[in-house]
């Protein structure tokens, strides 16, 4: 399936991009994280197990076992710090 991936804040800066379109063969958010982590470097570092980051699918916060669907907008970002 095709996914639109968005990065925010520290992750956007570390990854050097705000947005990408990705071909994805897995099924859950956890699978996507594993695929990104496999890129190594800052990807492996920032998305390592134990690092705090959040995933939203179609603008809703989800647990890592959430299923992804064709053309979903998936956002990956650090814990929020507004207010």
């Amino acid at each position, binding site marked *: 399936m095709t996914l639109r991936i968005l990065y*925010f*804040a520290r992750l956007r800066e570390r990854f050097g991009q705000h947005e990408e379109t990705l071909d994805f063969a897995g099924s859950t958010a956890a699978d996507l994280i594993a695929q990104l982590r496999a890129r190594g470097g800052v990807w492996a570092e920032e998305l390592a197990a134990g690092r705090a980051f959040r995933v*939203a699918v179609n603008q*809703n*916060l989800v647990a890592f076992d959430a299923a992804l669907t064709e053309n979903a907008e998936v956002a990956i970002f650090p814990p*929020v*710090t*507004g*207010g």
Partner: protein
Amino acid sequence: MPTIRIQTEAFDSGAEMAAISRNRTDIGAVASFVGLARDMNHGDDVRAMVLEHYPGMTEKVLAGLVDEARSRWALLDVTLIHRVGRLLPGDAIVLVAVASTHRGEAFSACEFIMDYLKTQAPFWKKEETEHGARWVEARASDDTAAARWTGS
């Protein structure tokens, strides 16, 4: 009826708070909160901060927070304004004002909205300090504060 705004422009928190009860005679209580940019954090001078957000999701989350507060308490009106972009020390970042008949509902709803906003709404702060720029880390105390409202 609720007012929800995300904006780069400064806002006048006093004027916004006064507006919620203007020309109404049914409101008995207005509880409000203003969060401001400070000149100091973790012992360092902060010269400015930049607030990034996730356009689209932010609007959705804030509307959801206000809806949830209105389903939990009998509220007469809610105003929620959050700035994004570059802010200077002393600038208001966020305003939550809640109008109700009695004070208990107004206080609870105002604090609930702030607690959830802090942990759910996709805003991120980056501080410009004398040692360079740094992203503000989430505080565990904010998760604790938000957890108060579940299971009660």
